[in-house]
């Protein structure tokens, strides 16, 4: 197997981050863990954006991933983190395979609204389930990894952080290969002109279906990691504002590169956490202006800063 430049740099950054985890303060590790876990969900959104579909309901799979990890430990005795995360992805894939049959028949705003509707249905079901804690949710704890139980506090925080970085690396490499491969390029062609793709003898619908299902799996992994890191899940994970946050991060980063969602998620978390600290009454305004600024000055997201520089060097 040969690795290209992007993959090698991704791996180098991942190793550097894991090492950085050993010297940085707890709050920063937590912030980065959540940012990278959310970035995985954003990768799911971006995968669909690349093929021209905007999912306003990616919170559905984020929530499925989180709740599977939580319920696995609480009710089914699945305490192994890797098993629980994989189970979350499998559940998300199963759900996506059913919903995808309907959703891939729709485009544009109709797809967006239908995806939103399904995530709000899950929200509604969870809110009406008192045995799952209704809106209060429940705690996720006592998980192990290959039979080894991290002894609370810092050790478990480091474990989730490392796990998130590794998961992020694997997913990033896979998505990078996918977008560079023929099928990934055709996804962009579907966005540009679906009829033409059909005339080429390909089925855009099944392409989108496969894309939708894989995006669901990636998002569920992000949800599961968030649940492990936070130690709590609640139905808010499926609420439309959560899905909106993922689109916010996707627009912030842009579709230019597989690394963009990760960078955008970190920038988003840092801006938000300092906005809350410095202007506790108007922090939402700071976030709004940030997005406005990016849309006006960098319509292709933060990644265009990097890609423009490259283009300039070549010229």
């Amino acid at each position, binding site marked *: 197997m040969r690795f290209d430049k992007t993959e090698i740099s991704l791996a180098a950054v991942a190793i550097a981050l894991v090492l950085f985890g050993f010297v940085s303060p707890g709050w920063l590790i937590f912030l980065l863990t959540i940012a990278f876990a959310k970035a995985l969900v954003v990768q799911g959104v971006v995968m669909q954006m690349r093929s021209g579909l905007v999912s306003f309901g990616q919170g559905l799979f984020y929530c499925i991933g989180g709740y599977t990890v939580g319920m696995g430990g609480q009710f089914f005795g699945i305490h192994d983190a890797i098993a629980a995360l994989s189970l979350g992805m499998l559940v998300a894939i199963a759900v996506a395979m059913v919903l995808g049959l309907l959703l891939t028949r729709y485009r544009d705003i109709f797809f967006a609204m239908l995806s939103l509707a399904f995530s709000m249905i899950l929200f509604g079901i969870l809110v009406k389930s*008192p045995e799952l804690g209704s809106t*209060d949710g429940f705690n996720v*704890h006592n998980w192990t990894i290959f039979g080894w139980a991290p002894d609370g506090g810092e050790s478990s925080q480091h474990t989730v952080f490392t796990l998130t970085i590794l998961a992020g690396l694997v997913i990033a490499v896979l998505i990078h290969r996918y977008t560079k491969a023929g099928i990934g390029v055709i996804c962009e062609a579907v966005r540009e002109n679906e009829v033409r793709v059909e005339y080429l003898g390909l089925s855009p619908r099944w392409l989108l279906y496969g894309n939708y299902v894989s995006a669901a799996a990636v998002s569920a992994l992000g949800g599961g990691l*968030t649940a492990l890191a936070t130690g709590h899940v609640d139905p*808010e994970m499926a*609420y439309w504002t959560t899905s909106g946050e993922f689109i916010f991060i996707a627009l912030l980063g842009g579709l230019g590169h597989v690394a963009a969602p990760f960078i955008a998620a970190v920038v988003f978390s840092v801006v938000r956490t300092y906005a809350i*600290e410095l202007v506790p009454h108007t922090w939402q305004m700071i976030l709004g202006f940030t997005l406005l600024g*990016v849309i006006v000055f960098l319509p292709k997201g933060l990644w265009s800063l990097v890609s*423009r520089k490259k283009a300039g060097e070549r010229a």
Partner: protein
Amino acid sequence: MKNNKTTFSKYLVSGVAALALTAGLASGASAAENGKFRIGIVTFLSGPAAGPFGVPSANAAKVLVEALNKGELPAPYNKIGINGAEIEAVIIDEAGGATKQVEEYRNLVQRQKVDAVIGYVSSGDCLAVAPVAEELKTFTIAYDCGTSRLFVENSDAKYMFRTGLDASVDNIGAVRYLAATRPDVTRLSGIQQNYSWGQDSWADFTAAAAKLLPESEIVEEQFPKIYQGQYGAEISALSVKRPEIVHSSFWGGDMEALVLQANARGLLEDATGLLTCGEASLATYKDQAPNGMIIGARGPFGAFAPENELNTWFKGVYNAAYDLDPVYPATKMAQAILGLKFAAENAGLADKEIPTADQLAAGLKGASFPSVSGTVEMARGNGHQAMQGISYGEYHYEDGKASIVNSVSFSGECVTPPEGVSAADWIAQGFPGAQCN
């Protein structure tokens, strides 16, 4: 030209990003010890819960911290700040959900280096933060959240405390008030927001009513979604069943909207409203709520707080600063801060010494301290949960002034399950061991 624009925007965005990141690292380093006692205060500053709960609470915290730093409180709280050390309050917004609150809690403790955290209106946030408080070994007081699961699921808590009462107490108290003042009611109904708070409140209320008002029946229940704002259909559904009592755990804007609409439609003339959180809007109903509507304050807080030196003082400074009487969330915030101060000064430290989390926890566990609401006994949840009485009364509006009449108080032992017994079991067994005055 195009080139200039791209360079400009490039610098702008990278500048902002760099600024944010360096600000991050810089302030992480600068949060050093400065001899002050830092309190993280978390409550809603935005969203629907900000108006009724968050803002009065934050306002109460501000006046109290200011007065404490000047040593203006009546005895026994007349020492400056916390144990002589000046207080520095860091107020942050609770909006945004449990994941974000866990992140912000860690930021408060690990980056801002607060010595204690007081906060949380939302039960979900309380449940999410409790294990983190134990993990980071940080003294934390939940001042308002109402879930009775808090110390059931965190039964071995060391650092998490709650100085407010849980939602079961509200609803057991409400039924006891009905049994004491209207023992003949038979037709009960309810309208609740469809989320944990509303569901739990209604479950406790109906279970308690089945025991204490055995003649009564539930004629109608409605669960509109939270923040719906328009209750025409629900009010009609309630009206046609001719209930005598309409119980609701609504709060904030939803509650005010319900009262306004139900009153205009005549529902509250035929039936008596019973609002467990009703006191929070005492000053805003004016003539839009009928006289005789039963309201509560989730404990002896706000307008139900007893006359004592501390409360008179607190009402005075709050009124002077904001031109309003403190509502129950404000009283509860004051109570949590006094609890923290009591814990610090109960630990037997030298003057100006900043207590550790363990010393604070030891100081508050099982203690009983004087507060704006009377004496608070930390008598439940292994000494981590406050036990207090609860009062209900009727709204009365006359000559432009709202007041509460026919108030009845029930002691803590009358409305609180014994240690180790869940509220649901206690109610189902018929309140064994309850001591009512």
